[in-house]
């Protein structure tokens, strides 16, 4: 009897290792690991992980420039405010496919959901790095209820949404471990989870903008607007569509082996479809931006130095990429759309950094000097970005995300 159990355990172990090493032996697998990307990644991690350890052992002051006037820096500006709109990918594409029935995007749905899930997971990791006492992360849920706080809402919704996205992505995980029964349950909740995702995303994407409503005297009037929630929400829609284009382009370029022909063959067509949606959303956002300036009659500020930077943002990083996307869609050129999407994603990150860092405290003396982050803060961000990419790649290589598992075709 004990013999039988040990055979079973051995069997399980070998199956498990088979999954982890993608059917290769240890020596074969470790040989595949020596790539230029991995060498650079190892270099970054070898400096970055000790830096993160220093932050947790000796406090935030050892790593960041955070001060009493500048409580937030790169961790939140880049990781939370910059990362969350790009992670709207899961909800936007999920809604288009499951609710509105755009079945043509099928090969992209799981990729979009994974982009969203990992994006949120890492937004939380950036937050944990930045919180003074990260081990109290659950306090808004169980200890103190700041119901009047926008951040309270963000905390609840991001936590709930992270769970929802894990459930949405569980289909792929369950296919990977060849589950049948649990898999069926997972497919049954998809519509409910997608609708939950829409609600939670609408609210917390806009809530991230609403957070800055409490700082009217500190945020430059060109970026401060009663429409901040609307601006954050509407820009997250095109951020999501463009981010899916960016991620799928990178996969088609660098991770072809993980994708099947259904994915690669349909990619140009899907890219054009996403691009079409993105340029409509971008023009809506651009007009909203102008309405925001008009609402407070802030036109006169456009000639100031910050005004010129504002024009660079909305003309150079919203209108111009929107025009490029439109040109690409009109001429059915997936390549041009891809270029436009990369550009638009850059514009979104720029906008969030402007709101949370560059235009925040603009009226303090030597402001621009204060916002330059120290190298340690940058290396922590680089480390988290590297780990993000590595986990993303690890999942794509193993789970059926950009390819279909033949055993599960009947369910799709």
């Amino acid at each position, binding site marked *: 009897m004990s013999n039988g159990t040990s055979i079973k355990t051995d069997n399980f172990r070998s199956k498990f290792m088979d999954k982890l090493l993608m059917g290769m032996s240890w020596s074969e697998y470790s040989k595949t690991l020596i790539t230029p990307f991995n060498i650079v990644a190892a270099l970054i991690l070898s400096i970055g992980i000790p830096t993160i350890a220093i932050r*947790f052992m*000796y*406090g*935030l*002051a050892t790593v*960041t420039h*955070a*001060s*009493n*006037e500048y*409580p*937030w820096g790169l961790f939140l500006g880049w990781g939370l405010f910059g990362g969350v709109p790009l992670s709207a990918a899961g909800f936007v594409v999920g*809604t288009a496919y*499951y*609710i*509105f*029935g*755009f*079945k*043509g995007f099928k090969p992209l749905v799981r990729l979009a959901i994974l982009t969203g899930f990992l994006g949120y997971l890492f937004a939380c990791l950036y937050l944990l790095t930045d*919180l*003074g*006492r*990260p081990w*109290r992360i659950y*306090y*808004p849920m169980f*200890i*103190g*209820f*700041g*119901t*009047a*706080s*926008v*951040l*309270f*809402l*963000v*905390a*609840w919704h991001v936590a709930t949404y992270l769970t929802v996205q894990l459930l949405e992505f569980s289909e792929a995980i369950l296919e990977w471990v060849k589950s049948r029964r649990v898999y069926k349950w997972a497919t049954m909740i998809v519509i409910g989870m997608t*609708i*939950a995702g*829409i*609600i939670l995303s*609408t*609210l917390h994407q*806009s*809530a991230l903008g*609403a*957070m800055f*409503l*409490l*700082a*009217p*005297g*500190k945020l430059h009037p060109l970026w401060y607007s*009663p429409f901040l*929630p609307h601006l954050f929400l509407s820009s997250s829609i095109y951020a999501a569509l463009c981010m899916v284009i960016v991620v799928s382009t990178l996969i088609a370029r660098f991770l072809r082996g993980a994708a099947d022909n259904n994915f690669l063959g349909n990619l140009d067509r899907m890219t054009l479809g996403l691009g079409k949606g993105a340029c409509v959303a971008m023009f809506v956002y651009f007009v909203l931006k102008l309405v925001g300036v008009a609402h407070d009659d802030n036109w006169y500020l456009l000639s100031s130095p910050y005004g010129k930077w504002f024009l660079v943002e909305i003309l150079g990083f919203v209108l111009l990429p929107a025009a490029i996307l439109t040109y690409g869609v009109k001429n059915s050129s997936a390549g041009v759309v891809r270029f436009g999407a990369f550009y638009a994603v850059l514009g979104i990150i720029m906008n969030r950094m402007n709101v949370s860092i560059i235009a*925040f405290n603009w009226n303090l003396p030597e402001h621009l000097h204060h916002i330059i982050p120290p190298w340690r803060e940058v290396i922590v961000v680089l480390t988290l970005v590297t780990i993000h990419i590595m986990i993303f790649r690890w999942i794509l290589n193993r789970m059926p995300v950009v390819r279909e598992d033949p055993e599960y075709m009947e369910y799709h």
Partner: protein
Amino acid sequence: MDGTVKKPETENISEEKENTCEISRRGFLAGSATAAGALLLGSCEHAYASMEFSNSKDRYGCLTDLTACVGCRSCEKACNEANNLPTPDVSFDDASVFKEKRRPTSKAYTVVNQYKNPKDESKPIYRKIQCNHCNEPGCASACPVHAYTKTKEGAVLYDADKCFGCRYCMVACPFYVPAYDYESALEPKIAKCILCYDRIKTGGIPACAEACPGGAITFGKRNELINIARKKIVEKPDRYIDHIYGEQEAGGTSWIYISGVPFEQLDFPTNLTKRPLIEETKGFLGAVPVVLTVWPAFFGMVYAALQHREGPHKGQKNEKEEEKK
């Protein structure tokens, strides 16, 4: 909280504000603000930190007469002792600290800065900075874990046992008051003046006000302080400018100021509105229940309608639509 007092007040405010909040109030005030709901919704029902006692006569405050301050820093010293703060590197009678503009830190709840007097260069102006104890504190509106409390005595208190260190209060405070000890890895916390709450609760006065030799800090009921300030301005129009800072700024503060020179020359934030900061986010918070209730119905219906239309030829129609695109 007494429901009968609360309702008329919130309704008045919502009428002044934008439609988003109004719609939500009309539709959902009745049923949606149950305790469990409020957790996820974050309704504007609970938005006000001090609603019950906004006009309370018992509310205390301080009046700083900037024309009377001589920059002796006795208040800094008294504050340091009363709150058991670490001894500073530079002693309290060393005037060299005036070379730069300081701000409250985790080791000093109050600091005094020196400014040039445009009227008389030989008599510099001194400005004491500490928490102003807003009537509707921005820090309390920002805090997701309810670590801030506006007491009925007027003091705004902070509870380090609840705080998880997000520092949103520091972002929200229009006066740049809350400070954080970034050096601490295990027990970092916010530091700020608490209006010597333990003293005033038992009939005492704040340590700084007690220590001030020049009579620059007057402690008392806020209503009375405003009357005193007004009287001073009327009696000596040459000495004071006609403005009580803190009477209305950011919805009013417990700590108010009168000055001989315009407040912007002394680095007081002068770009603040008369509205409490919570007013800025109330419209958004009010719209939350609408989204939570309307969205599932709307998207559920869209899904059901599309499924229904697809009927037996499930999938085909949409593929055609896709091709047209």
